């Protein structure tokens, strides 16, 4: 980007960096400056931090055992001093469950995004860089995944892997094996859109002169891909990765809501909603709190993604 030395100091070319009054900004600094200008994105980022604090900080207030403790005598209690968000159909405290459910929902969002990134970027990069037969083969596969609506595919795959993974224990906490299934299934069904974006990036960037120069100096193919093309196409990948965290959280909620998602006792914001619509008249707190939390986190991630898109846009001249 342009450096911002005052023109009265003479031609910029004659100045060494320390003579410049303001040093030129790095891409990261520039992005950060533009991001801070974006009101909605700031709001989103703050909301997001608060939600993460809520989910992970809340663990210091309530124990997981408390979140999973059933107390049939206290089922379906309205919000009160003792249970600020009320209790569910088997008497578990909803506040504590939204905290632990939030952790799992956020983790599912992030890890599913990673799975999607790995597959999507690999397929897109190979497709765009090598072209030809590999490209058309990979793009046909991509099309095949897109043609079946994602939720249908998710439901079939969730059902397919449903019983096959046992519970797992990490750091002294037991997770339902279905968490892993959901993460993989979401990752495996969302990558085609990212792969298309990456492919089009690669197609246009590989025609640039600096790639020709790199080839001429004998740079290896791997290095061209990873050192020259990938860093230049990082902006859309970051944006799409951010947004796909939100969509992974929503998707998890959809399949859990439909009864094929994460199995109890592990709570997620999604599976807390399962069957809650049967209590629409009698117990609004059952669905309101987890539902509102999902809506909030998706909204804030979308705002952040929108802000990042504007901030990373190389055509944007705003500083």
């Amino acid at each position, binding site marked *: 980007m342009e450096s911002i030395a005052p023109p009265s100091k003479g031609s910029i070319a004659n100045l060494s960096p320390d003579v410049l009054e303001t040093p030129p900004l790095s891409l990261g600094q520039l992005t950060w400056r533009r991001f801070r200008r974006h009101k*909605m994105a700031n709001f989103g980022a703050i909301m997001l931090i608060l939600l993460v604090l809520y989910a992970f900080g809340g663990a210091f207030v309530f124990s997981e055992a408390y979140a999973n403790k059933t107390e049939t005598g206290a089922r379906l209690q309205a919000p009160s001093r003792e249970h600020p968000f009320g209790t569910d159909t088997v008497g578990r405290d909803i506040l504590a469950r939204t905290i632990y459910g939030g952790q799992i929902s956020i983790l599912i969002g992030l890890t599913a995004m990673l799975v999607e990134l790995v597959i999507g970027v690999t397929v897109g990069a190979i497709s765009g860089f090598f072209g030809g037969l590999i490209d058309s083969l990979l793009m*046909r*596969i991509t*099309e*095949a995944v*897109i*043609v*079946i*609506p*994602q*939720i*249908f595919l998710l*439901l*079939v*795959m969730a*059902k*397919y*892997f449903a019983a*096959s993974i046992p519970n797992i224990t990490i750091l002294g906490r037991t997770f339902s094996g279905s968490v892993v299934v959901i993460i993989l299934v979401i990752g495996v069904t969302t990558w085609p859109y990212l792969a298309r974006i990456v492919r089009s990036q690669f197609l246009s960037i590989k025609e640039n002169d600096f790639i020709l120069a790199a080839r001429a100096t004998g740079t290896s193919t791997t290095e061209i891909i990873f050192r020259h093309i990938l860093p230049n196409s990082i902006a859309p990948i970051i944006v799409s990765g951010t947004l796909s965290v*939100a969509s992974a959280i*929503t998707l998890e*909620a*959809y399949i859990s*809501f*439909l*009864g*094929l998602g994460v199995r109890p006792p592990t709570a997620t914001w999604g599976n807390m*909603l399962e069957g*809650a*619509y049967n209590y*629409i*008249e009698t117990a*609004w707190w059952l*669905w*309101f709190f987890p*539902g*509102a939390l*999902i*809506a909030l986190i*998706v*909204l804030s991630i*979308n*705002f952040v993604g929108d802000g990042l898109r504007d901030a990373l846009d190389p055509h944007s001249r705003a500083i």
Partner: protein
Amino acid sequence: MTRYILRRLLQAIPLLFVISLVLFFLMQNMGDPIATMGGRNVTRSADRERLKRQLGLDKPIIVQYLYWLAGNDWAKADLDGDGIAETPGTRRGVLRGDFGLSLVNKKPVTQVIWERLPNTLLLMLTAEAMILIFALLIGIYSALKQYSTFDNIITTITFLFYSMPVFFFALVTMYIFAVNFKKWGLPYLPTVGMFEPTAGKTPLQVAWHMVLPTATLSFGFIAGYSRYIRSAMLEAMGQDYVRTAKAKGLPKPEIVYIHALKNAALPIVTIIALDLPFLLGGAIVTERIFGWPGMGRLFLDHVSRGDTPVVMGILMMIAVAVVIFQLIADILYAWLDPRIRYT
């Protein structure tokens, strides 16, 4: 153009073939077909063996796929288990329009789907009409009144709605318009089914029951499309041809609706066709919540029972529909926008 359409159709064949193969393999772990078929009655292993042979489940999966695809009336099955194939098969295969029998109720899959399809189409077409009408109205109005109070409010609401999961919108609207309106003694909206059993299936009843499902299905798309139309309209209004139209002294409605909107709304044709999978995805959740007897609920019911033929039938129908809609979108787009030429 004809060559382009033909080529696209030919390309679709291997695509659908691969999809069906992968889905068929995914179906193998859906549950126990014998249990689905016979309920809890089939406990004798001899019965299980017999049923397995009847369903052709004793064959290798590739042969099963072949039978599903092309039928088995040209092959003979060994039903009594003595090692000699004696009974000719009856299935005619998907390629000849036979999707097999549902394991749950033994009805032909095509019939099972056919019973539900009109309900889903009714819901989706109404929702699509609502989406178009409201998205155009909101998008055009907020573009013409850019940065006005209305525009700012609408922008905030569309952002909210765009991020809101379908089920949350459904639950909130149900809570407000059904539960609380009932409590307050106002005319309240029904939440379940297509009609009151006592009132019968009259058009008025169905329309009344459709209000909440349609709203649920369309709100997210209205939010997304109206944003899109707003920015496309803003761009079009800044074009030279709009300035020329203004300079000619054309009346404002003509500039807005004929000159600007026609160009701005073009890509929406493509977007609608490409968003069909998402609309179907929304329909599955909507139908589940509102107890709407459509394909989405059919799919859910039969997935959970492991009824492979019905699930395969629905998925393949959707795949064909999506492929065809994508082709229609491309053709329509070329027809509407003369700058695009396919060869």
